[in-house]
């Protein structure tokens, strides 16, 4: 992969630079619509991180002038487009579908942000990791089901043996823990990136925040 430069922000949060460069955003913005292309992805999470993103409230209007959301559960595009400047990934990598997606997203993204505890630590989705997948499914769909007891096998993604944090599968450039990360922290990170600075979220969020 790209050369892995480690940067330590003044407060000590490390940012692993996997070859992305901040000025790229400005160049790309100038070349295209004048806006930075942002994607948000929802893997194995509860959508709470996305809700927190929307909780930026009226400030989101200011952001909307600078960014273009090219892919997200919030917009109606089914295929990850590629050539994306910043992607926020919510959720752990839990199924074969998640795994396939995350590689595609990494390939099509300049700066990948692990967005929220599920992406950063696998969090609640990983609570099943202590058990066998079959036992978990049996528990949920047979033992605890009143009607129609059966494990869904067709048309749904297959669970991996364990739910994993995103950075155990692909390189991640920036980590934003929190369950969910406070909207102020999200706004701060996006704002700093748009200003061409490396955000330092220390003190603005934490695990479980």
């Amino acid at each position: 992969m790209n050369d892995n430069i480690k940067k330590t922000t003044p407060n000590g949060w490390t940012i692993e630079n996997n070859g992305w460069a901040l000025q790229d955003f400005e160049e790309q913005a100038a070349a295209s619509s004048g806006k930075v292309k942002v994607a948000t992805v929802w893997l194995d999470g509860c959508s709470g991180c996305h809700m927190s993103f929307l909780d930026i409230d009226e400030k989101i209007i200011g952001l909307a002038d600078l960014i273009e959301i090219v892919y997200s559960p919030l917009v109606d595009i089914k295929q990850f487009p590629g050539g994306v400047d910043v992607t926020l990934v919510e959720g752990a990598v839990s199924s074969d579908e998640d795994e396939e997606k995350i590689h595609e997203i990494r390939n099509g993204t300049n700066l990948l942000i692990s967005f929220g505890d599920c992406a950063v630590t696998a969090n609640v989705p990983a609570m099943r990791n202590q058990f066998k997948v079959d036992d978990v499914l049996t528990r949920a769909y047979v033992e605890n089901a009143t009607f129609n007891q059966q494990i869904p096998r067709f048309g749904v993604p297959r669970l991996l043996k364990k739910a994993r944090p995103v950075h155990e599968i692909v390189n991640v450039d920036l980590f934003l823990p929190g369950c969910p990360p406070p909207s102020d922290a999200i706004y701060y990170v996006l704002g700093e990136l748009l200003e061409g600075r490396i955000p330092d979220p220390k003190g603005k969020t934490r695990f479980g925040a």
Partner: protein
Amino acid sequence: MTEQRLHPRGKPLRTDVNPVRLLMCKIDGKDISAREDETILSVARQNGINIPTLCHLDGLSERGACRLCIVEVKGAPRLLPSCVTLVRQDMEVTTNSERVTAYRRKILELLFTERNHVCSVCVSNGQCELQALSVELGMSHVHFDYIYPRHSIDATHSRFSVDHNRCVLCARCIRVCDEVEGAHVMDVMGRGITAKVITDLSQPWGDSETCTGCGKCVHVCPTGALSEKGKSVAEMTKRRQFLPYLQLMRKEGQK
């Protein structure tokens, strides 16, 4: 009756006929005078130098279990845990070199990977020393693979429960129960990664005949491992004020 006080290395303390010597040392470039029976940690803290700790708790004996308090001592090839290392004349200590902070980060990350810490659904969320350390040491994620071990919860006690998923094996509970309550209900069973805090002879806490139900262990536990029953997510506040207070009262009582 005066019980002979021991300093952390087990040597007898000096007495009036054999008084404690003062010495000079250097911590982070600062010249500092200290008593020879003091640890690097205690001297540093008295002088406003912060060293992160987890297993250390004022009022309990030192255990040196967590290794987060490591510092660099000039001339020593390895890093030394400051809570169990005594100061020496002319010792030169560095508490925050790059090497030290890098190792601290690794130790902290390993603590997170060894058990199942799910802060968002933990009784101690927002009140936890381990979680606070992750902020203090700037740990935004772990670089190691999580182990996801299978651990049990013992909720047999009428008022307390222990969730081994959250335990960092700091042994504060063991020490407070032994040294302050005098019941010695708890201990560590097993070694390394299989080590586990047990009550009595690894019997359910609720069946314990030695536990007085004082709750001291619960309140010194830095994490969500020990909690009061009926507490939900983020509700478990720990109250530790009793400890220095009790120690002081007992010292007065001995006079």
